[in-house]
């Protein structure tokens, strides 16, 4: 009797949520895959659902394949690429010999992702060759680069800010608030602010440059300049939660460890590398994964500030799916882009779930 009552109330309680969950999360998720196998013109299908044409994997093939695409090693022989690679490898070796990498899975993952981002640049069509969809691979590369730099800039800067402001006192509360209040700004407001800051004429950067007698720098015309603006906006905007998380983690490191290290005569940098950093290693990984996952879906900033330009330099994957679906009216093609992005994000989500299940 009691059991029946439990069943009754249990289902009554979860029913509203479950209905919404199934109809607006699980069902659309299934339908995303379904649509991606069709040539699904938004207008034609709206008139008659029979107008959706089954095309199998053609949408995916169109996005991913190309003629004569090869891994081009020659792109790595420019000075800047060689310097980047050397810095990366030397610091990896340095961390390895100093035994800093031990027990610091967050840092290991950083190097892993850095190498992946570095070598993805090599996937290129050779001469006289082409991608079926030239923009798709560009957008994957753009998003990956912007995602990597935003996520790790946020992680490292948030860590530095958290360590710097991890003191008691009213003044530090004000300072912390100054740092993380930016997270309350909405994405459209953020974009307007950043356009205003980096505007070639009348932007604050130009005002400063002019003040010191330099010329304006055209951020929104230069490819790397506009990427920088998008990354800067993202970092400025999304840093508040990581700061809070790092502060919480820092305050959980037991005070005795610091005191013991001081008695042993450890220097400040030794304390940082061997006590502070291992103490928050778990949080480091969590924060960087959360940021990586959320900035693969970057859309608003790029859409409002640059519309993907100049020359597709800031065209992100979600922006591309959006353009396919609502500018070109090809829902099927857009859905295929979303599915591919889902698998990329799924990889990071999988790592997140795996590492945090094991630690329990």
């Amino acid at each position, binding site marked *: 009797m009691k*059991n029946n009552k439990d*069943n009754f*109330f*249990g289902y*009554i*309680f*979860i029913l509203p*949520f479950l209905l*919404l969950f199934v109809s*607006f*999360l*699980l*069902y*659309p*998720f299934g*339908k*995303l895959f*379904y649509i991606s196998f069709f040539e*699904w013109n938004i207008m034609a*299908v709206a008139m008659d659902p029979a107008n959706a044409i089954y095309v199998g994997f053609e949408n995916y093939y169109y996005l991913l394949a190309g003629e004569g695409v090869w891994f081009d090693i020659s792109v790595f022989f420019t000075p800047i690429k060689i310097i980047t690679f050397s810095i990366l490898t030397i610091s990896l070796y340095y961390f390895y010999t100093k035994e800093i990498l031990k027990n610091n899975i967050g840092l290991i993952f950083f190097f892993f992702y850095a190498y992946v981002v570095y070598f993805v640049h090599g996937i290129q069509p050779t001469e006289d060759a082409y991608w079926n969809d030239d923009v798709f691979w560009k957008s994957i590369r753009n998003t990956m680069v912007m995602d990597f730099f935003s996520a790790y800039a946020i992680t490292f800067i948030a860590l530095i*800010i958290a360590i710097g*402001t991890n003191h008691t006192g009213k*003044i530090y509360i004000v300072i912390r*608030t*100054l740092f993380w*209040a*930016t*997270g*309350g700004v*909405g*994405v*459209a*407001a953020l974009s*307007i*602010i950043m356009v*205003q*800051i980096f505007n070639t004429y*009348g932007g*604050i950067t130009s*005002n400063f440059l002019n*003040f010191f007698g330099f010329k304006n720098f055209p951020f929104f015309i230069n490819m790397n300049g506009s990427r920088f603006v998008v990354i800067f906006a993202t970092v*400025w905007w999304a840093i508040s*939660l990581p700061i*809070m*998380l790092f502060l*919480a983690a820092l305050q959980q490191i037991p005070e005795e460890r610091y005191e013991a290290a001081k008695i042993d005569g450890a220097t400040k940098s030794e304390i940082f590398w061997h006590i502070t950093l291992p103490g928050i290693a778990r949080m480091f990984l*969590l924060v960087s994964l959360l940021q990586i996952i959320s900035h693969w*879906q970057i*859309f*608003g900033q790029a*859409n*409002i500030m640059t519309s993907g330009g100049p020359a597709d330099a800031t065209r992100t994957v*979600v922006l591309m799916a*959006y353009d396919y*679906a*609502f500018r070109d009216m090809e829902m099927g093609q857009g*859905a295929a882009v*979303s599915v591919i992005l889902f698998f990329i994000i799924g990889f990071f*989500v999988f790592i997140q*779930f795996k590492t945090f299940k094991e630690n329990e």
Partner: protein
Amino acid sequence: MSKRFPLTLIVVLIAALIWSIPFWWILSLSFQPNDILQKTTSNTALGFIPFPFTFENYYLLWGQSFFDWFLNSAIIAVTMTVLATILCSLSGYAFARIDFVGKKIIYPIVLAGLMIPGELLFIPLFTQFSSLGLNNSFTGLILPRLAVPFGVFIMTQYYKGVPNEIEEAAIIDGANRFQIWYRIMVPLSIPAMITVAIVTFGFAWNDYLWPLISLSAQDMRTLQVGIALQIGARMQEYMGTSLAGVIISSVPTIILLIYFQKYLLRGFAIGSK
């Protein structure tokens, strides 16, 4: 004992002031008259001091379409927050404390839903809602955002921590499950519910992609969509007024973020366990 020179404090303070420069600058510009901003944005002290000073920009916003957007956003965000918090609390209580048949199957599925990035579903949601005829309505904006497994997860974790004795005493007194939830569990779980409410409100207020797709009527626009589509175009002529709008649009969420930061942190502490 001589007091040490507070080097850390000064470095951190300067860093914080530099970090928030965009904010000060925009704030200062929003208090300057439009006709001056058309000519230069660095009038006094590179524009950091609002001189000549005016309140006109904020005054002008009143009664414009900006006011409608603000109202739309407020209605949507408040409705979404109230509904989502109640739904999450109800189902969280059921998942944590009631042994009903099939819980062992349903709860893991809900948790697996955490892995689906909801932002990516805009294409199927659009086709779904246009066949339901719900695009361009507040219902269409609110419904898909209520299915958030994150809130259910937080509430479930919280209710699991409530001691058994409280509930057993109420059961002996003859209270049914709904009464227990309403009279005992809701008051006990106010902190966790605030966490869910804050996260939902912030998300709803700053939601951009889905309203952009779902709404096409101008008078239905939310704050973010309105700012992105209309304010950007008006920047040249009415810079001060536009920036005043930007400031106003950010005030509610910034206040929430600062005022309720400890609830946010607690939520993520529960979430990352």
